[in-house]
């Protein structure tokens, strides 16, 4: 397992460097707090940490997750029914750090729960519990001034997205504001495991690479070791969400096994 120093942007940079030294892409699983329940979600994250994943996208549930497909919709709905709040998700990160998890953790949330918590308060509290960055799918760079300012103060990553529909002007705009990495959405669509990745993926990545040196992390649709193997050549990192959430229905061990097979595919 990689040992990382620092936190925030520094920790994320160190994560990529370690993966680069091994000539592979970094693997960041997504997992929502509170699914199937609070304890089980922490156990799943801990189990994945043990098999050497590189970082985490920690999901905060939201009632109206409009970028998510059925798997994550159902899981986060269940998390809400389990009483999971933003505060509880922050406690989860703190608990995971106390259990000795060293990998960078980025908190993923839709905007409204963070606005309700208070932007400055949330970023500070997230930093204090040991989170390293934020991923907010409904916050384009045009609307992100306050978040960008507060994240910069705390040295936290603020992740923006690019999609296959993004034109050159938008790629430049996102690249200019990116802190940590750019989350590249592999397809036009919502989250969910897919059998095949889009055929024009390499062209799309090349289009982004032509505009920026910022590290790229690919997400949406990635679910199988064969997909993971492709990532080494293509991007600096990748995110797997729905497939792991689906595995969690079979228990922690199934999550760990899938994470392990995805991780092993990179070597």
């Amino acid at each position: 397992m990689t040992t990382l120093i620092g936190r925030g942007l520094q920790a994320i940079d160190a994560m990529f460097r370690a993966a680069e030294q091994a000539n592979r892409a970094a693997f960041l699983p997504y997992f929502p707090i509170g699914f199937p329940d609070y304890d089980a979600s922490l156990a799943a994250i801990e189990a994945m940490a043990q098999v050497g994943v590189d970082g985490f996208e920690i999901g905060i549930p939201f009632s109206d997750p409009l970028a998510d497909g059925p798997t994550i919709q159902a899981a986060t709905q269940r998390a809400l029914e389990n009483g999971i709040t933003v505060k509880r998700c922050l406690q989860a990160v703190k608990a995971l750090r106390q259990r000795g998890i060293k990998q960078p953790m980025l908190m993923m949330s839709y905007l409204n729960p963070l606005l309700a918590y208070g932007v400055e308060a949330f970023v500070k509290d997230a930093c204090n519990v040991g989170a390293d960055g934020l991923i907010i799918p409904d916050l384009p760079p045009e609307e992100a001034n306050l978040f960008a300012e507060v994240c910069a103060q705390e040295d936290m990553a603020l992740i923006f997205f690019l999609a296959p529909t993004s034109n050159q002007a938008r790629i430049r705009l996102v690249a200019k504001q990116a802190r940590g990495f750019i989350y590249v959405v592999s397809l036009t669509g919502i989250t969910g495991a897919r059998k095949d990745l889009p055929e024009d993926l390499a062209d799309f990545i090349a289009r982004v690479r032509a505009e920026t040196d910022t590290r790229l992390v690919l997400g949406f649709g990635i679910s199988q070791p064969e997909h993971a193997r492709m990532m080494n050549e293509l991007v600096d990192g990748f995110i797997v969400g729905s497939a792991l959430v689906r595995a969690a229905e079979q228990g922690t061990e199934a999550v760990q096994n899938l994470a392990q097979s995805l991780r092993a595919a990179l070597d």
Partner: protein
Amino acid sequence: MTDYIKRNLTDLPDEWGYFGAFGGRFVPETLMPALDELIAAYQEAMADPAFHQELAHLQRTYTGRPTPVTYARRLSEHLGGAQIYLKREDLAHTGAHKINNALGQALLARRMGKKRIIAETGAGQHGVASATAAALLGLECHVYMGSVDIARQQPNVFRMKLLGADVIPVESGSKTLKDAINEAIRDWVTNVRTTFYLLGSALGPHPYPMMVRDFQSVIGVEARQQMLEEVGRLPDVCIACVGGGSNAIGLFHAFRDDGAVDLIGVEAGGHGVESKQHAARFADLSISRPGVLHGTRSYVMQNEDGQIMETHSISAGLDYPSVGPEHAYLREIERAYYTLATDGEALEAFQLLSELEGIIPALESSHAVAEAIKRAPQMSVDEIILVNLSGRGDKDLDTVIKALGE
């Protein structure tokens, strides 16, 4: 960045889609280029006389515009105060104001070369209007509708199917308008290259609140002129119901600079504010405050943790936890005022207007009528209230029979 050019029609929204602190574009990146494209296409269409001519021609020969203003003599006499006039959007083709916006956006979709239209619907009126516009222009149409709304608006579901649209039931969340919008946005994210999202109310990301307002502003433009012609002066009060707020903003817009005209929006009070079962975003600030839902910043009914709350109204079209950003702005600058009518008050208004005027209003519009019923007796006989009768009530008969039977 967009090459958005400020239009002369109005000062707001600003180039980022803001009405003061409300509005904006809070959507996944996949949709941002589509919104840029839509803004550009809309500006171009607005600058093209041929677009306006075609829309005006359809409004006249297809929708049946201008819709009349009717003096509600017996209702006014019964209430014994102000004179009540009704702007008859219920007489527009398909039975509600929704067709104004649906035709405008469908023409824009065709202009943009998009052959597939998606829409969300609550009461079904916007779904019917979209299906109608799609049939007229030969476009493919898919309508997302919450399964709760499908159950309470059966006639409209059947109408949409007759018009050749595909009605897709939404089973997530509260199974009402909010969830139908979520599902429509997910479809749009997936099929954005070929699909035009025909959003039905003055909400969502920029440019929708502006575009929907502009297409609906024909209501107020006509009504203002009709009042001047028929009564010789402007009304003292304009009243409209507010769900997302498209019929209200369509009425209010033409009167925005007439300082002497009070603009009143009526939200759905459901079982009453105390019950917490309502959709009164401006009335119940214990559970409603500025937030972001469906791409725009406005008042949003939410719990302490920022989770969106389920709403209740007897009228599906008002059953929505947020409200168009321009209404939030008009309220903040005190140009418009917002109040509510409960389910019970709307039902009474529904019956009273039917009995006294021979006009069966939509349950949504009945909320506006209810406010007129409250106000008129407190006003003098030479004062005038103009109510936007945004739709007809045939679609609501099942709901009303059930409610009155209980």
